């Protein structure tokens, strides 16, 4: 029962890609500890909300609702309602506590809310628009900022990063030495002033705008590979997933995915590997049989298994987090070739 609850993506009243995206996001939200975080000091965005923040039960209410909604999404119970409630809760907590504001949490709030608003039997256009908007506006904000264009921001940030060390991560190693940041700072010193900082700034701006443009133009494969490369670069340089940004960025790519309804695999169903595939295949996507059919590659089996994303979210979001592991994702994304089988839609 738990296996089907955790790994099944069809049968809900949302597209399977959206269910998987929300589940991966909820797993990361839970395992990183974001689901348990309640701001201790509530200074609201608007004075009008101050009476609510004085309530002694507010913190408990936020905590219970946050954990309950997250667990419901993880175990596939009332995914639409739970996701909407969690998204609205994150927005509301931000309005009630200025200190709670962060772009990565609001990105999650948008994905939870907009994911819950998706139609049942159409591609997830709202989530896709949300993802495109985030990359486009983030790129434009940097493009319109003179300190980003000149490299002054990147120069100052990289010097400080090399001095301070890794930013926050679930590994709780904030401040430990970030070798890529130290290497970057050393390299920048050897080159003409601001040369590397300006190049890095423009590369960041170009990447963000390119991801938005490619995804909007339907060039999904290259757009997703660039998005993974972008997030991997940020994680390796800073040693940090930037709160939920890394997980939200990668999970949102699933909204552009197209999972085939059926994948034929030439394999003895009762072999050890066959039984393992059947165990994780809660959607019954894989057809195992011996014969002369063209076998699907192991990479395709992993990439088309929702269970792989749930397991990956646990591996990347726990205290065992290491930034270098992100490179594995990038390698998988580059090596992968999509299946041409028809997409999976609706109930089984």
């Amino acid at each position, binding site marked *: 029962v738990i296996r089907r609850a955790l790994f099944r993506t069809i049968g809900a009243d949302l597209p399977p890609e959206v269910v998987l995206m929300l589940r991966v996001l909820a797993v990361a939200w839970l395992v990183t500890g974001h689901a348990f975080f309640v701001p201790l*000091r*509530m200074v609201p965005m608007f004075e009008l909300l101050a009476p609510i923040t004085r309530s002694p039960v507010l913190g408990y209410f936020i905590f219970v609702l946050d954990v309950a909604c997250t667990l419901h999404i993880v175990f596939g119970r009332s995914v639409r309602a739970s996701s909407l409630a969690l998204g609205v809760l994150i927005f509301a907590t931000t309005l009630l506590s200025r200190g709670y504001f962060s*772009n990565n949490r609001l990105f999650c709030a948008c994905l939870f809310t907009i994911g819950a608003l998706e139609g049942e039997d159409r591609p997830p256009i709202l989530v896709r628009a949300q993802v495109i908007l985030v990359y486009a506006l983030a790129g434009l*904000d940097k493009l319109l900022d003179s300190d980003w264009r000149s490299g002054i921001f990147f*120069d100052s940030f990289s010097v400080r990063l090399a001095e301070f060390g890794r930013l926050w991560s679930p590994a709780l190693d904030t401040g430990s030495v970030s070798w890529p940041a130290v290497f970057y700072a050393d390299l920048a010193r050897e080159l003409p002033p601001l040369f590397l900082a300006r190049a890095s700034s423009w590369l960041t701006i170009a990447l963000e705008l390119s991801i938005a443009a490619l995804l909007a133009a339907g060039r999904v494969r290259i757009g997703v590979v660039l998005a993974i490369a972008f997030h991997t670069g940020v994680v390796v340089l800073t040693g940090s997933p930037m709160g939920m940004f890394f997980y939200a960025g990668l999970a949102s790519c699933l909204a552009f995915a197209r999972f085939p309804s059926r994948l034929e695999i030439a394999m003895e169903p009762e072999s050890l590997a066959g039984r393992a595939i059947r165990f994780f295949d809660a959607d019954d996507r894989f057809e195992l049989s011996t014969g002369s059919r063209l076998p699907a590659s192991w990479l395709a089996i992993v990439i088309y298994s929702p269970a792989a994303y749930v397991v990956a979210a646990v591996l990347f979001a726990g205290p065992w987090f290491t930034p270098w592991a992100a490179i594995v994702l990038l390698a998988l994304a580059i090596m992968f070739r999509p299946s041409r089988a028809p997409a999976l839609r609706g109930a089984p």
Partner: protein
Amino acid sequence: LRTKLGIALLLVQVAMFVRARFVESRYFCWAPFHSEARYTIDASVLGRALRDEEIAERYGIPRYYWDPKTRSNWELNAMAHVFDLVRATEDLAPSDARAKVEVTYSVNGRPAERWSYP
């Protein structure tokens, strides 16, 4: 209705992005790492200087990036958010418990500036 609500949420973000062109703050407009700033808050209530721990608790500021040697914190978005937080906290406090606050900060490695409340 669901689609209309989704589109409305997307339009709010675009509106906030346009708004951000005219103000210092960067709320809900997708401007992570807009700037980086090192800052120190000094505050006193009724003439008594608050300790760094008291200041962090008073304003609910996370101390992941706190450097005890220089008594400085690190803001990775916009300094306006720190000023807004201090101002909103003090505005909500009873008038006889309000703090006098001075924030010394340096944005993107530039020379230090000061901001004060009230």
